[in-house]
């Protein structure tokens, strides 16, 4: 298994990133539920047990707090654990371990905890309230953590590698709707090149009239809307944050100053959202350049509903985004 094998999926790219880092660094190991023989609920770790053996691909009992804690302890001793949550929703069971134990450790007594916590997130798969989560806002508040949420095949590969190399606890969210729906290529020599750094946003589409700041699955909603509006001569700039924490404030402020109109687009209830943090930064740091209110296009303030018509109403989409764009342009 090696890079550069033509078109691969978002899921393949993450597997490839794990593979390459495990090859490059013997201290990297995987731990989680059903990731070995079964290859994970989404088969993301398929083949890794055969290649790296049971000491580097470890199946655990059902104990999110227990195995995150174990990952923390092993990280202190010089290993680089990559923890899989079968669904990212179950990260809630390890909340204390992540926020209090891992997040504060380096600040409190100077001991680093290099670790990646990853898993399938996000909706539009009829997973209902407990299998569709986007927990970024729950963790953005926690000092000492980093949060990565890629939206393209290239970033999925590059950022999982950087996350593993980082010396801090990194939450790496993988939108399951993208797993097999988007494709891309990785250069053959990617493994030897320096991976995409954490903390840097990417200008996904330049534009003049309005900025949509987003990431993950919503990136594709933004690009679709931008494409449709381009036909009318409306030029939307799309900024893909990629790393949510630490936030690339420079890029956020730059695009806000450039277009003067900002919509933060995220897949989460609006109240208490990560989008709120981005909007607040814009309102404080780019205020004098704004020509319109800072808008958020998020989900309903409800748990994720199950039935497709309900989930469609819950989730943002290109039509909803375009409607909001028109309102702001009228401003």
């Amino acid at each position: 298994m090696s890079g550069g094998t033509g078109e691969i999926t978002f899921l393949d790219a993450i597997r490839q990133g794990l593979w390459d880092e495990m090859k490059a660094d013997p201290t990297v190991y995987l731990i989680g539920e059903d990731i070995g023989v079964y290859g994970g609920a989404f088969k993301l770790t398929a083949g890794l047990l055969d290649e790296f053996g049971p000491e580097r691909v470890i199946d655990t009992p059902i104990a999110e707090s227990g195995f995150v804690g174990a990952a923390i302890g092993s990280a202190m001793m010089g290993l680089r654990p990559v923890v899989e949550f079968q669904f990212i929703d179950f990260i809630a069971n390890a909340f204390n371990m992540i926020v209090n134990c891992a997040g504060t450790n380096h600040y409190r007594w100077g001991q680093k905890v290099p670790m990646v916590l990853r898993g399938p997130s996000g909706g539009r798969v009829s997973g209902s309230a407990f299998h569709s989560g986007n927990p970024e806002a729950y963790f953005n508040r926690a000092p000492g953590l980093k949060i990565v949420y890629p939206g393209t095949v290239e970033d999925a590969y590059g950022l999982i590698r950087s996350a593993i190399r980082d010396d801090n606890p990194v939450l790496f969210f993988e939108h399951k709707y993208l797993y097999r729906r988007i494709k891309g290529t990785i250069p053959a020599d990617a493994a030897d090149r320096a991976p995409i750094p954490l903390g840097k946003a990417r200008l996904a589409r330049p534009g003049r009239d309005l900025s949509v700041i987003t990431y993950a699955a919503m990136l594709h909603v933004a690009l679709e809307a931008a494409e449709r509006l381009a036909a009318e001569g409306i030029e939307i700039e799309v900024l893909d944050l990629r790393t949510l924490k630490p936030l690339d404030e420079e890029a956020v402020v730059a695009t806000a100053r450039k277009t003067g109109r900002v919509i933060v687009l995220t897949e989460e209830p609006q109240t208490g959202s990560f989008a709120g943090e981005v909007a607040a930064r814009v309102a404080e740091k780019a205020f004098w350049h704004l020509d319109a209110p800072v808008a958020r296009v998020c989900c309903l303030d409800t748990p994720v509903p199950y039935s497709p018509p309900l989930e469609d109403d819950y989730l943002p989409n290109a039509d909803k985004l375009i409607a909001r764009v028109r309102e702001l342009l009228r401003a």
Partner: protein
Amino acid sequence: MSSLGPLHPGAAEHTDRLAKTSLPRERQLELYRFLKLNRLVEDRLTNLYRQGKVVGGLYGSRGQEAVSIGTAYALGPDDVVAPLIRNLGVMLVRGVSPREVFTQYMARGTSPTGGKDCNLHFGDLKRGLISPISMLGALVPVMAGVGLAAKLQHRDYVAMTYIGDGGTSTGDFHEGMNVAAVLGVPLVVVAEHNGYAYSTPTARQMKIQDLAQRASAYGIPARIADGNDVLAVYEAARTMIEAARAGAGPQLLEVKTFRMKGHAEHDDAAYVPKELFEQWKAKDPIDRFERHLLAGGLATQDELEAITGRVNAELDAEVDFALASPMPPPERAREGVYAEGAQA
């Protein structure tokens, strides 16, 4: 796999002779009807799933029906039970109609949650039913609280819930059992030992053979029953439910059984050795109960077939109802986050 040793060593060995019971013929036939209803509803769901009519995953209990039916059948009318998503039989015994289940799995507007939640994720306190929660283990503390309420209200209902072999590894299982033991609440926890947690065999889940051993950490009574003998399950559950009702505090009932399919319909269970499936097929709880009824002269083949026939006729109508049901109106997504207002 053999390195994991035989499944359920020292388990109540499953013989063809079923446990003694005080249940009269009619009630045994009712048990039979529930067992068949459980399996046939799941067979219908499997077909609907293959036809792409089920929205999301499908989780079954094939081979484990005696656990849900036998334990729920032992509950009193005022008792409160929280099933897991494999415990369809519990809901059927509590009076849930197949159409409620079909509409839930098909995300229809007519479902008990109106399309808001999936599969068996619904409840109804009028029928003493509390909805499952996906996070494994969480129902143990919650049901300890239901038992606590009975105690504080000086009422005599009992709380019952289920946990898998894998679920007993969770912190919530531990905290819930220990709190229940210390507060002495009427709670029966049915630990369903079916050999696997998704793809993980019990030997990779814990270093003990019997889930019942978990009870010794809490100082509470535990029993092990043959989970493929509906009468054994019923009698053990009844004894423990009445003990809890009488004030003996929480009880742990381990039932030894086997998951005859994958974790869910999408899982072919390639990781399960074929021999295990064969070994357990011979112990199918419905076949065994059928043989018991026939051998004991409690029913004739015709009578049993008549029961099955009536169940199938009912299910035809229920499936039709679900298929004819509309999807929910989008606006419904916006309703019900908060319970209306405060009490005056």
